[in-house]
């Protein structure tokens, strides 16, 4: 009986620590933007909208400042009968803000709605929208974005498509200045077999930008094919391994001069996650290219150096969990920015903090 109770308690801890945030994904070597291809996490709704059915009835807030490096964002997700829905505020997934660092108005105040259902076939859809303008200066600036996502999951199979319909900025210093993103797409599929998940994803996007008469065209495409393995060591710990082939091509034409950048990588990621105590889960990962890892700019090749170690933790208070990264504070407190030099700091106990509350 005692064993059963212990296992049940362990499962309770395990199942709760599985639900998390951007910092958990980064600590496990995954994408903080769209989540993981093979690790269950709330962030996965930004890749496959049908995942809105897998985890529901929670509020999540990612600490930070709007439009700063650590973006303030969050939302809530809830079930209603056979449906699950959610509202997410200020997401910056696939935002072109960094591309537009030329004075054009960035995307702001994105509102994203999710809806999904489980009728044997799990389905989900989301739509996002934002509209901003600024007449503060001599010329009115505008930015509008819109996108839709659909996804399905049935048994071992799943598929998804995310389409960016609009991302348009008008006017910087002259009426002719503009940024206009092409319709971008991200499509993919995955298949689960035992503890493995095989996946493939294709992305394509681009933009045209004109600033002070200088035109810039960009086209980007990428393919990812990989497999991830989730090994449950015990009821409260697990090891993740992942290997994926990534190739992408970026063609940027500035004032008639085209620069082509090609990357080919084969990163291996090994991660772990364990409940150290009833109130603390620790996780970490190491990632490095193996065999393949090159960047070719204008036909000239160089090897990519890519070893990255990340770590994180979750403070577990039952239904409320505080996630964060650890090891990102410099041992020099006068340093202006966070940096990684092997320090476990107790004053900045966690960074990239997010809180999620399950109800």
């Amino acid at each position, binding site marked *: 009986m005692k064993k059963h109770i212990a296992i049940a308690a362990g499962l309770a801890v395990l199942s709760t620590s599985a639900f998390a945030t951007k910092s958990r994904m980064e600590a496990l070597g995954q994408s903080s933007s769209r989540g993981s291809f093979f690790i269950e996490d709330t962030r996965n709704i930004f890749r496959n909208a049908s995942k809105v059915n897998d985890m529901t009835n929670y509020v999540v807030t990612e600490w930070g*400042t709007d439009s*700063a490096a*650590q973006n303030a964002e969050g939302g809530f997700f809830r079930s209603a009968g056979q449906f699950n829905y959610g509202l997410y505020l200020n997401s910056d997934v696939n935002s072109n803000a960094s591309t537009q660092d030329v004075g054009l108005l960035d995307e702001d105040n994105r509102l994203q709605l999710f809806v999904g259902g489980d009728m044997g076939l799990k389905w989900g859809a989301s739509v996002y929208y934002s509209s901003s303008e600024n*007449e503060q200066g001599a010329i009115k600036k505008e930015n509008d974005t819109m996108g839709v996502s659909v996804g399905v999951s049935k048994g071992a199979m799943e598929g998804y498509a995310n389409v960016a319909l609009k991302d348009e900025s008008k006017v910087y210093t002259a009426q002719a200045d503009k940024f206009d993103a092409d319709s971008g797409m991200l499509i993919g599929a995955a298949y689960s077999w035992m503890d493995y998940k095989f996946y493939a994803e294709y992305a394509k996007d681009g933009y045209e930008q004109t600033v002070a008469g200088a035109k810039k065209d960009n086209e980007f495409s990428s393919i990812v094919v990989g497999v991830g393995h989730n090994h449950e060591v015990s009821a409260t710990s697990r090891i993740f391994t992942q290997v994926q082939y990534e190739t992408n091509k970026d063609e940027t034409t500035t004032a008639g001069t085209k620069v082509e950048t090609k990357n080919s990588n084969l990163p291996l990621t090994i991660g772990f996650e364990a409940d150290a105590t009833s109130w603390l889960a620790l996780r970490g990962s190491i990632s490095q290219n193996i065999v393949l890892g090159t960047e070719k700019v204008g036909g000239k090749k160089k090897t990519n150096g890519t070893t990255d170690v990340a770590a994180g933790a979750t403070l577990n208070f039952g239904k409320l969990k505080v996630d964060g990264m650890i090891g990102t504070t410099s041992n020099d407190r*006068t340093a*202006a*920015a966070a940096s990684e030099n092997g320090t476990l700091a*107790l004053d*900045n106990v*966690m960074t990239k903090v997010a809180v999620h509350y399950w109800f």
Partner: protein
Amino acid sequence: MKKILAGIAFLAISTQMAYATQARLIALGLDELDNEGSYYIQDQRNIFLNAASVNSYADLVVVELGGNGRNVSGNSVASVDQDNLTKAQGGFLKKSGNYVYGAYLGNESNTSALLRIASTSNAASVNLVAGPTSAPQMLPTADKQVDLFLGSELANGMKWGASLVYLDNEDENKKQEEKAGAVRLGVMSSNWDAHANISIMNEAKNQVSTEAGALAGSGNTAATVNQEFEGSLGIHVGGSYKLAKGRIYGFYKTFQWDQKDDYNYTGWTNVTLSGTTVAAGKNGKSEGKFDTYSIGYGVSESVNQNGSLFTNIQFKSTNIELKVAQTVEIKNTIIPITIGYEHVATSWLTFRGSITQNLYGDRDNKNFSSANLVVQNLIKDVYGNEGKGTVQNSARVNAGATLTFGKLTIDGVVGTTSDSRASTASDSQSRTQSGVLALDNLMTRVAATYKF
């Protein structure tokens, strides 16, 4: 028996959760100039919104840690309370028979401070151009305010409350006087509540000197400036009604005032300081008006036996008009949505947080340069820059915690410390929020509540 004990223990915790402070409401998304309380979240702070709330929070002492707030003047007479530079305040509420009474010290209104700062002479506000000068010579903001409360519950269950606000200060060396008075009246039934908070007096005046050369670029030399603020009307009325799972609410605030400036602006040319242009002020009397109204719907619902979810959507319009050389106008229309949570994590820790973002936000601000230097910087922090456009970067994530030690609770805001300790405290309205959970600055805007 165990279940009963567990139930009692939970009730003890959840009852204590209800008593809290500005830090709690800010963490749950409150964004009002005076943090005067919420129409849909139960909190001790609501006594400043509806005085009838005193009946729900008897027998406690509250102290909010802080100093003099953010000083915005060279003559050390004008300050505002903001999250990273708080003002010290506190008080008590006590039950006596059928009545609850109390006193609260230091809860000076930020709205009143903003209006008095706006009434300062443009010439006095730029008294820092050429050194060695001593910075803006402002009108005094309210100080040493006392709020007295009295309330009771009628036999039919209707609660009523009243509050009297008073302050009177002078400094003969500066020919300075400032005084204010207000009354708050409120009623609460189980399904509805209403309040009328009325300013009956609000005055400030002083005489300041601008130093020779201070107004470089304007062609003016040393001068004596008499400046004055006189509130002519101040009303905050509102109420809420229980509807389905939540409360629908609305309020209207209006403040009108006259201001006087005897500086002679003849020959004044624009003065530019750190990129902020100050145009000539208006000699003589000017009028100002501050209007805000809002309607909204907020829900507080219990979840998980020891937690709460909060959702709120409101329409809010703010219009400010100051008829000086050119009419300074602020028009902000926003529809923010707020999602918040609060959870009794352990017997000694309650954690809370929220995210707020505008579903719609529009601003149309004009002629800031005709306002004085100090208020220009303040209103940019609160209402955005001059010009038309959407309200940018409206998303805010806040978090907070309560440390519970039996009848004593310590509240604070969490997550407001930068990852680098090299950064100095900023005077700007915004706090440094870079996603860090810091243990050295464990909580900010800290307050303690003791229930006896």
